[in-house]
């Protein structure tokens, strides 16, 4: 089945972020196709490479990056939500005159239209959040 995933909550704050990852990974292993993973609200914070959890904890961000690398996943961070929360890629850095960027490998920043398109193109859109 062709699935898309929406992640609405931030890492380490909320189980939804972990559940979304585990669901996505398991869906791939079960042979399903992931059309897109869309990060919204505080969920955009799943995509900052500055995240540094204690060594004995899971690395939520790297986990997504590795899964994306292995399976060519499309990890999309909402631009409007990202701008509010200080999540920046090179393009946003230039456009907004910031002194750096913090997006993690495998993620890209794009618009909310990508979420609607995911809803249209996928057989199921699975939302993780409160």
């Amino acid at each position, binding site marked *: 089945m062709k699935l898309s995933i*929406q992640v609405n909550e931030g890492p380490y704050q909320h189980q939804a972020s972990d559940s979304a990852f585990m669901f996505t990974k398991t869906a791939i292993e079960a042979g399903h196709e992931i059309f897109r993973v869309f990060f919204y609200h505080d969920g955009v914070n799943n995509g900052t490479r500055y995240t540094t959890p204690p060594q004995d904890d899971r690395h939520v961000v790297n986990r997504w990056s590795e899964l994306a690398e292995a399976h060519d996943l499309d990890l999309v961070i909402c631009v*409007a939500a990202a701008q509010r929360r200080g999540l920046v890629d090179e393009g946003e850095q230039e456009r907004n005159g910031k002194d750096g960027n913090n997006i993690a490998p495998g993620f890209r920043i794009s618009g909310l239209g990508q979420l*609607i398109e995911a*809803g249209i193109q996928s057989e199921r859109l699975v939302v993780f*959040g409160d």
Partner: protein
Amino acid sequence: MSDVKKFLYVNRRAPYGTIYAWESLEVILIGAAFDQDVTLAFVDDGVFQLVKGHDTAGIEMKNFSPTYAALGDYDINKIYVEKESLEARGLTIDDLQHLVWEDEDEDWAEKDSIKVVSSAELAEMMGQQDVVLSF
């Protein structure tokens, strides 16, 4: 993308206190450009989003409630408010903004967008959707 799907946006939270209501409205407005079959539902504290007379000066937040009045211009005219949620909060439809849309097929007659429905009716409607986005 010619296929039209039924999109339901479920708004469950108070307009201020968290950003969910505002960021839901942003999705709804962007989504309107995709010409899908859109329905909005307001349940639980989400019914407060439509209450008229918001004054946000004291919390230094942008008052986004005028945006709901523009939904009709985006061809979003199926707005369902759960009856039980209104009653539990001591509200009636008269406490809500009067949202309208213009019906192109009836010489642009102005029609009400908001309909108060029971929990059971809403559940049935949810079952008919292709995509349910919950905020």
